[in-house]
């Protein structure tokens, strides 16, 4: 066995972090890497806020009696947990933070196509978040993140500022998507054809398509809701000839594709992690690439599966169920392909890979339970119960959040040039894994026994399971706080990692860590595919041909 020589790495003297200094140079930056970091700070703050609301929910639900929230207070807390996590955290998260930072590097570009639009997108996000914050402090909101009418048009809480905030944040999402579509089409390095792109880029591209096509419909839906509320024009009011179920159709036409905006970037990261940490060419590249597009397309056709008991026609229900089953297949293909990639690989169980494995296990459970819910007869029983809550947490947290944290641990050395404490990282990953499953697995059981959603109090037979679930949430919280601790510590005091500590083959690793402001010192030439681990051995250095002459 070869002894790996211990190399001391140095942070490059001039890099994108220190090239220009001062708060103005960050707030007015046009550098996609800095914008990515600005977004990262914003979405992780949102994750923290949404997480606090989650803890409040679980603490209140420890017993059926009132712990510290009134029923109205509880309704506000679960609405805010949902709205913040979905609109302020998970939808922007991976695309805006990592899509921005990593994607141009991966395709060998200097920046995204429209850097000023990119910065504007971040400010638009902040303005929208500002309205949402204003809503929280001026009456709050208690409609559930789904804003169903007529409750949302008649409640006295601050619906208009909140929905307007979400409306504004929608534009941030649209412009980010637009930027990425154009960047991926037009700014790839010479030689990088579509099928030589890393799968992360394919995932971001499919996501961007959905962002661009679906979000305007959310915009018009929320605008109609706002107009209905202050002008009473009657679109959703049955007494005036309107239809509350129409709201549900409009809302889910966006919000179903939205869940694919949430998961596709996560899957995109998993492709990178599995390949890099198995050190093996990804199995079935084309199938994975096309499955992303397939999911994006079919995702637009299944919105009615949220409305099987809403009073729509039986024929509609049957059609929606049918197409819903199709969506499961591309996701299944990905899982099988990823596992096959690990076969006869050279697997490193560093932190990013632990998160990837958590994803494989948890997302699978989420996926299977999606099949359960897509089955018409069973959904009648399980709709609006804790089974649904467990399902979407398994795919959104067990899926996307695991992938996000895997990506954080993978690209942290690229962003800061420094490595975090590997032991703490492993402990935190295990804590979150255990905590997550303790919290949510039991909710499948509760749901199938009839425990409804959005309940402030509940029948005594569910107390044991609720208590167990709440303990899990505390374990998860500890894990997440630990991660925040050692990652932030690593920014300042971590050991310099070198340009390519994972010896991966995608292009972002062929420049320094942290990268220079212009990303690459020379225009990158594609010398090998992103997964040619069977042909090329990478080292933790910037490749020879990348050095300036």
């Amino acid at each position, binding site marked *: *066995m070869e002894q790996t020589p211990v190399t001391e790495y140095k942070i490059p003297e001039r890099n994108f972090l220190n090239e220009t200094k001062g708060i103005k140079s960050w707030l007015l930056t046009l550098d996609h890497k800095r914008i990515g970091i600005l977004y990262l700070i914003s979405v992780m703050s949102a994750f923290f806020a949404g997480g606090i609301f989650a803890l409040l929910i679980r603490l209140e639900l420890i017993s059926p009696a009132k712990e510290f929230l009134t*029923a*109205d207070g509880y*309704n506000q807390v679960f609405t805010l947990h949902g709205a913040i996590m979905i609109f302020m955290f998970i939808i922007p998260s991976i695309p805006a933070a990592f899509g921005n930072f990593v994607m141009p590097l991966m395709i060998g570009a200097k920046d995204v196509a429209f850097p000023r639009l990119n910065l504007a997108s971040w400010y638009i996000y902040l303005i929208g978040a500002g309205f949402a914050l204003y809503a929280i402090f001026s009456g709050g909101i208690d409609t559930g993140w789904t804003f*169903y*009418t*007529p*409750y949302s048009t008649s409640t006295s809480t601050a619906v208009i500022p909140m929905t307007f905030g979400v409306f504004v944040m929608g534009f941030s999402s649209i412009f980010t998507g637009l930027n990425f579509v154009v960047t991926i089409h037009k700014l790839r390095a010479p030689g990088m054809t579509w099928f030589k792109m890393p799968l992360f880029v394919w995932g971001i591209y499919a996501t961007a398509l959905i962002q661009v096509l679906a979000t305007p419909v959310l915009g018009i839906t929320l605008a109609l809701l706002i107009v209905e509320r202050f002008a009473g024009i009657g679109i959703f009011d049955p007494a005036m000839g309107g239809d509350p*179920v129409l709201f549900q159709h409009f809302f889910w036409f966006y919000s179903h594709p939205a869940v694919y905006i949430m998961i596709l970037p996560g899957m995109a990261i998993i492709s990178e992690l599995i390949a890099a940490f198995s*050190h*093996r*060419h990804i*199995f*079935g590249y084309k199938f994975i690439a096309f499955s992303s597009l397939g999911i994006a397309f079919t995702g637009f056709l299944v919105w009615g599966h949220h409305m099987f*008991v809403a*009073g729509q026609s*039986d024929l509609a229900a*049957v059609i929606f*169920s049918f197409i819903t*089953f199709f969506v*499961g297949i591309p996701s*299944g*293909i990905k899982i099988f392909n990823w*596992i*096959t990639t*690990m*076969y*006869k*690989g*050279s*697997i490193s*169980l560093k932190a990013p890979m632990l998160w990837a*494995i958590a994803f*494989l296990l948890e997302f*699978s*459970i989420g996926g*299977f339970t999606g*099949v*359960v819910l897509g*089955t*018409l*007869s*069973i959904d*009648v*029983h399980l709709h*609006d119960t804790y089974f649904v809550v467990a399902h979407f947490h398994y795919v959104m947290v067990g899926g996307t959040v695991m992938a996000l944290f895997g990506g954080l641990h993978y690209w942290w050395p690229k962003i800061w040039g420094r490595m975090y404490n590997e032991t703490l990282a492993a402990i935190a990953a295990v804590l979150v894994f255990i905590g997550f499953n303790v919290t949510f697995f039991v909710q499948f059981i509760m749901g199938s*026994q*009839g425990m*409804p959603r959005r*309940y*402030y*109090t509940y*029948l005594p037979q569910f107390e044991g399971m609720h208590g167990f679930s709440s303990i899990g949430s505390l374990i998860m919280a500890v894990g997440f706080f630990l991660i925040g601790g050692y990652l932030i510590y690593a920014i300042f005091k971590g050991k310099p990692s070198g340009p390519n500590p994972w010896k991966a083959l995608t292009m972002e690793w062929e420049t320094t860590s942290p990268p220079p402001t212009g990303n690459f010192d020379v225009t990158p030439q594609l010398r090998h595919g992103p*997964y040619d*681990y*069977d*042909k*090329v*051995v*990478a080292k933790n250095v910037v490749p020879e041909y990348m050095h300036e002459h």
Partner: protein
Amino acid sequence: MSGRIDNLFDFILWASVILFAIVAISTIYFAIRYRRHGDIARTTPYIENLGLEITWTIIPFILLMVIFVWGIRDFLRLHIIPAQATEIKVTGQKWFWSFSYLDGPSTVGELIVPVNKPIKLLMSSQDVIHSFYVPDFRIKMDVLPNRYTVTWFEAVHTGEFQLYCTEFCGKGHSEMLGKVKVLPQDEFKKWLETSSGPQEGQTLEEYGASLFVKKACVTCHSTDGSKNVGPTFLGLMGRSEVLKSGQTIVVDENYLRESMLNPMAKVVVGYDPVMPPFQGILKSVDIDGLIAYIKSLEK
């Protein structure tokens, strides 16, 4: 019917368990078996395998289609209502359920039905969207304003079964519960005939006390002095109350009767105007009983 649904659920459950076991075991096995030792070297050459890809596209597809068709058949059975079903009107409103029988009484919070007879529920809401859910029967249907939705069931066992509201409807959503009481057919007939007024041997006060629970007053009014959504009934009779209009009144029988039938007329200051009207739900004898009960709750 619920047996059929459970069978499908179990089928999917076991198929998922098997598939998950394959996923989990292979993942963990590969992670250990192919663990990296020492420094990086080139790994084994990449070979495409279209056959494998197609296999695990086709097999899940077939499995899913089986599940889909099975689910459809059960779903349609749920939605095709037998012609001879007895119809009961269900009304959902914040935050209780009321039921009325074609030529019979109306009940609050309790759906009383005969065993082994198909029952059709014709449902609508007085305000926002609610959802009628009886887990033991595996039925659920949203209840909408200005529209009717329908569902049906046939109970094959007697007993009491839990009813939930399962579409978020505000403050009292988690307390909008009810019970489905399935009686033997002869008992049900008897109940239908004798369901109004104090029962044999019951005083008017006791009748009122039973209504206090049956008609869901207990959801918002306490009897021990504590403030709830509505004022406490303890010592209510003869109490001096200040109304939102600024007027002061003394609680008497007329005030009580008016507040039950038209609660918006004289709301006490410090309380939200959320009490639903019981016009059409409380008969005269019911109101008499409740007043007698309230009178008995002296401090």
